[in-house]
């Protein structure tokens, strides 16, 4: 014990007279370990605390405070009490001691056993003895923290001080300038208000002491280590200013004044603050200032200085209107909303009628903002504005004016559908008649520019069930049909198709009876009779395409799906029979079917119908086509065309991914039986003379094996919990077909199907065996002259399937891929295949078809394989180097930017090399990879900038248009780099970029202009 005592004496001595700061930490450790108590520390400090020299006393207090900061949680209540009294007393001491005293008080204020009543006395002493604003920043911060701690733990005691606390704090923070302290101080004021501390007579003083910072004008130094942004300060000050209605009488005049300021940020901040304040104010607070606020907002919106100010002005107006709408009306108080809206209407209405239409848009926007706040506001504004707009529409003859009026009307209609249709359907019934006649006249107007808006207006009007009469809805459907079949303006037609999609869901019966038959008969007329004289100037074929698109778009309701799917399938059936239709048209039909499938995914009933109808039908049609071929075999049937089968894949896939488990498992066994055993019962038409044998690769059944693509679409899209029957046999068949298949379509579909299945196959013996035999066969295939390409294709897909699920074998296979890069024949192909490995595949092995994908697989692939690629590049001979570069740039292109930036230093010289590689694919993918990185890579670029600029400028004359465009985009991106790096090159670049200005392609010239003009602006203060 005595030993510890003397050790303590030694440490204290060292700290106080020896000025060794480290001693404090040792003492603190001692206290924490229990070697000595706080009391002992105080005792050992005794003499020095009584020292006549203030610096020595300060040193003593400092030691004690530092110990307390470490050990405040171990103090007993009694100890805290003694220490507080001691410290409080020290506040009266010499000013050099004050900072240490505050530190000690901060430590004590965190203690949980802080005795009752002492918080008040500590604060009183601080308020009385310390002139806070003459302290250093850190010590002021300490004072704020002490207050914050007490407010957290001793709220009731502080409240007993009444308004004195508030007043004390006002004095503490008055004149604060440091942003770090302001953040804390603002939070304290916010708490004072929110937690209902007494403000007494000091409301205005409290407001003054914070509002003097409004609007915040603070720009952090660029190397600011504290990370305080202007935004932080603005937000916390705004929270204070808008915290209480009691500030209203001071805040609102201030806001009006600042809105009229010339500084845009001040305007914005005022509008934001007004919006925030409206959330807590009632009409009592706003009443007096409404005319002033309205005048300021109106001025801002009418004289739009910037879009931002306009948007915020409108938002503030909406907030004002909402605030007035929400206030509870007493029986005697007047309705301020009424008066306010009258004011707004009075100032805006007449602009809507002026013939030159100069201020129509700002006025309409103001009115709409005011109306959008509540149903009451909406009703009042609409009731006044709609008759006016209807009248104006009839008065103006010019279609551009009519269009503007219609657009404004549409804005008001949208508001109404938000507020009024639900609650109070009748209130607008009086306008139904004239609104309909206006919209219908617009949609039949000779000028196409009205149609688009009219379609939108019709959609809004018919969206609500009860508003339009049944006859009107019929008319809407007729108009839409007419637009789809006759409209010359593609945008309006597109809008009509979209409108049909959203309205068909609400009024399915109307669309089935009025639109479907018309589209259907048009579809058949065209396809049967070929070209027929077009009545509307639109080519028949594009009308045919529109019908397909419209049928798909409107299939948003189960009853419509049941109508449209047979129509679309009917087209495919006819194509199968005559075999004459061209492939492009069939692909268009397939696209529509796919669109329908995607829309059905949300509705289990529709999806079930769709799956049961479409999947067997497609299989049946293609199997028939393939079997027909057996006999005729002159030329492949159009349904077996690559593009047609590729278009069918997404249909089957979309019809399968969201299937319920029961239907999926019954369906899967039928389909697998069809392919494995030629079991044709699933097909709708199944009287064949021969057997369907898709996996038999020799001779006549070659066309049949193309249908493996459809098998892939089905089995690779099933949810992972659906068991696939005969999986092992199926995999073996796929494996051999993918190596022996003769056409690229067949063997790659088969390889993809194999990969899709093993990606989802659960770990176990089956998977191990299959992979074992696959890698053997790949090795053999690569060795055989005739099957090398097939083997490589299979290798790529299997590797991809395993990379995605982190299967241990993936490393070995990837190594194989890398080693093939220096193969004389397969090298270039293998390099291209690297893009398959890392990019997302649209038909299989993606999230939508439930593939097993581990997160960050790309990053993992990158870290494991890029060093190998780099090494391979360095050791490869000149002929093979491009292959490595191409593989590398494919990998880099798929990586997230953040990963690339960190790796850039090691790769940059390689990328530069890739830019001078003669292969266009390498050039292009390197450029696309570089462009987003240039901004973040200033340091690395610094030493390479000469070379980079030279190479980029060379590429601006490349024979390939896309390369020229990308190179110019990079030249533009360079202008964001630090000025000193660019200036030496400015003149050279400007001269060199003159050449692409005369490029023969417009898209290239556009990029050249942008880049060159930006280089001109470099170093000019105007930019």
């Amino acid at each position, binding site marked *: 014990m005595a030993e510890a005592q003397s050790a303590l004496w030694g440490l204290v001595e060292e700290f106080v007279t020896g000025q060794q700061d480290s001693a404090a930490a040792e003492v603190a450790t001692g206290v924490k370990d229990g070697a000595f108590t706080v009391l002992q520390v105080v005792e050992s400090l005794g003499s020095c605390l009584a020292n006549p020299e203030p610096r020595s006393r300060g040193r003593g207090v400092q030691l004690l405070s530092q110990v307390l900061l470490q050990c405040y949680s171990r103090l007993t209540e009694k100890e805290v009490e003694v220490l507080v009294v001691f410290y409080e007393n020290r506040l009266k001491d010499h000013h050099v001691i004050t900072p240490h005293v505050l530190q000690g008080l901060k430590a004590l204020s965190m203690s949980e056993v802080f005795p009752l009543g002492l918080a008040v006395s500590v604060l009183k002493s601080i308020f009385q003895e310390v002139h806070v604003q003459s302290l250093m920043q850190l010590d002021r911060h300490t004072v704020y923290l002490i207050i914050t701690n007490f407010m957290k733990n001793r709220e009731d005691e502080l409240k007993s001080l009444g308004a004195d606390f508030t007043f004390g704090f006002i004095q503490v923070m008055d004149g604060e300038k440091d942003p770090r302290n302001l953040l804390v101080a603002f939070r304290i004021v916010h708490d004072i208000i929110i937690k209902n501390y007494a403000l007494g007579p000091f409301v205005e003083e409290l407001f003054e002491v914070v509002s003097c910072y409004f609007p915040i004008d603070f720009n952090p130094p660029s190397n600011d280590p504290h990370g305080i942004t202007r935004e932080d300060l603005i937000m916390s000050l705004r929270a204070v200013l808008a915290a209480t209605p009691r500030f209203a009488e001071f805040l609102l005049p201030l806001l009006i004044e600042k809105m009229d300021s010339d500084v845009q940020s001040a305007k914005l901040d005022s509008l934001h603050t007004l919006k925030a304040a409206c959330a807590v104010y009632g009409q009592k607070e706003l009443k007096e200032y409404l005319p002033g606020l309205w005048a300021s907002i109106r001025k801002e919106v*009418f*004289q*739009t*200085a*910037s879009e931002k100010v306009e948007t915020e002005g409108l938002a503030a107006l909406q907030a004002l209107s909402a605030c007035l709408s929400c206030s509870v009306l007493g029986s005697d108080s007047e309705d301020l909303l009424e008066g306010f809206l009258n004011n707004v209407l009075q100032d805006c209405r007449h602009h809507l009628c002026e013939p*030159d239409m*100069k201020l129509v*848009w700002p006025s309409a926007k103001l009115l709409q903002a005011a109306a959008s706040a509540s149903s009451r506001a909406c009703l009042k504004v609409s009731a006044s504005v709609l008759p006016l707009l209807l009248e104006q529409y009839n008065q103006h003859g010019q279609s551009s004016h009519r269009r503007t009026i219609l657009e404004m009307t549409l804005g008001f209609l949208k508001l109404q559908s938000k507020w009024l249709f639900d609650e109070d359907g009748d209130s607008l019934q009086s306008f139904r008649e004239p609104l309909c006649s206006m919209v219908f006249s617009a949609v039949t107007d000779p000028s196409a520019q009205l149609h688009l808006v009219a379609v939108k207006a019709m959609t809004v009007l018919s969206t609500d069930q009860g508003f339009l009469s049944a006859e009107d809805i019929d008319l809407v459907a007729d108009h839409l049909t007419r637009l789809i079949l006759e409209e010359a303006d593609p945008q309006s037609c597109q809008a009509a198709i979209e409108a049909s999609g959203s309205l068909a869901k609400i009024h399915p019966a109307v669309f089935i009876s009025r639109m479907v038959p018309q589209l259907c008969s048009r579809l058949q007329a065209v396809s049967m009779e070929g070209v027929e004289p077009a009545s509307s100037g639109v080519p028949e074929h594009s009308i045919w395409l529109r019908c397909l698109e419209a049928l798909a778009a409107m299939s948003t309701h189960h009853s419509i799906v049941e109508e449209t799917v047979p129509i679309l399938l009917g087209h495919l059936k006819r194509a199968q029979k005559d075999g004459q239709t061209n492939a492009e048209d069939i692909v268009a039909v397939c696209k529509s079917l796919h669109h329908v499938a995607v829309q059905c995914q949300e509705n289990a009933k529709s999806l079930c119908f769709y799956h049961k109808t479409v999947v067997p039908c497609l299989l049946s049609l293609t199997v028939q086509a393939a079997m027909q071929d057996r006999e005729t075999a002159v030329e492949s049937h159009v349904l077996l065309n690559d593009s047609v089968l590729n278009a069918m894949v997404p249909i089957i896939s979309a019809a399968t991914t969201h299937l319920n488990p029961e239907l999926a498992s019954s369906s899967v066994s039928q389909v697998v039986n069809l392919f494995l055993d030629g079991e044709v019962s699933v097909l709708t038409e199944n009287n064949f003379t021969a057997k369907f044998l898709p996996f038999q690769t020799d001779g006549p059944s070659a066309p049949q094996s193309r249908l493996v693509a459809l098998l892939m679409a089905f089995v690779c899209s099933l949810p992972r919990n659906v068991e696939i029957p005969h999986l092992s046999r199926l995999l073996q068949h796929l494996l051999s077909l993918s190596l022996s298949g003769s056409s690229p379509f067949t063997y790659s579909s088969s390889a993809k199907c194999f990969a899709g299945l093993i990606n989802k196959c659960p770990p176990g013996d089956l998977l191990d065996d299959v992979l074992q035999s696959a890698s053997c066969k790949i090795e053999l295939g690569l060795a055989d002259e005739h099957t090398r390409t097939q083997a490589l294709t299979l290798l790529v897909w299997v590797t991809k399937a395993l990379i995605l699920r982190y299967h241990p074998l993936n490393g070995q296979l990837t190594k194989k891929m890398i080693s093939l890069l220096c193969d004389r024949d397969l090298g270039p192909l293998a390099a291209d295949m690297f893009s398959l490995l890392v990019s997302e595949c649209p038909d299989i092995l993606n999230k939508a078809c439930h593939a097993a994908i581990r997160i960050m697989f790309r990053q993992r692939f990158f870290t494991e394989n890029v060093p190998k690629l780099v090494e391979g590049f360095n050791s490869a001979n000149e002929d093979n180097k491009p292959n490595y570069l191409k593989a590398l740039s494919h990998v880099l292109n798929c990586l997230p930017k953040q990963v690339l930036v960190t790796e850039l230093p090691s790769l940059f010289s390689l990328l530069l090399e890739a830019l001078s590689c003669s292969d266009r694919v390498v050039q292009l993918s390197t450029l696309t990879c570089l462009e987003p990185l240039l901004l973040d890579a200033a340091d690395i670029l610094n030493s390479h900038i000469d070379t980079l600029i030279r190479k980029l400028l060379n590429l601006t004359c490349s024979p*390939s*248009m896309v390369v020229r465009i990308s190179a110019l985009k990079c030249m533009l991106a360079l202008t964001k780099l630090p000025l000193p790096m660019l200036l030496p090159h400015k003149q050279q670049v400007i001269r060199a970029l*003159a050449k692409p*200005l*005369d490029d*023969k*392609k*417009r*898209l290239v*010239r*556009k990029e050249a*202009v942008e880049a*060159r*003009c*930006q280089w*001109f*602006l470099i170093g*000019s*203060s*105007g*930019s």
Partner: protein
Amino acid sequence: MRRSTVVITCPEVCSYVFREVLTLWLEMVGSSQLENANPLIYQRSGDRQVTAQDEDEELHDRIDDREIFDLIRSINDPEHPLSLEELNVVEEIRVKANDEESFVSVEFTPTIPHCSMATLIGLSIKVKLLRSLPERFKVDVHITPGTHASEHAVNKQLADKERVAAALENSHLLEVVNQCLSARS
């Protein structure tokens, strides 16, 4: 900031005539008061649709009226935060381009007949076209006939190669022009 603080500084090599020219420019570029505080605002046209022909490597796209209009429509007005297109100062129908003969002609319409910014606007259009078009082009920028009080003086100034070059030697003028030509944030 625009006019009042400018001090004409010429390098010694500049002749007296050069100094004259500059003074003339600066006088024409005019005062800093906002003259037309509340102009009519017109709709911006959308971006040009990219056609299949644009994407065909082999075909040669001629420089046409719309392409020239696209170059100048986004130039900022010196006194409003709006583009020349939004103020209807430039319109597609007043732009003529002839690729074969390497000739471009642009008419611009000041918002009001006494607009003192007319010269600066013209100069900005001219500079933008000089920077964006191949050197073979002859660029003619002038005021729409009958829309400005000192139409001839402005046109003469803009048509004179030497004077335009002299104007761009002046750092103040260049800065103002660059402001008009920089992309809006």
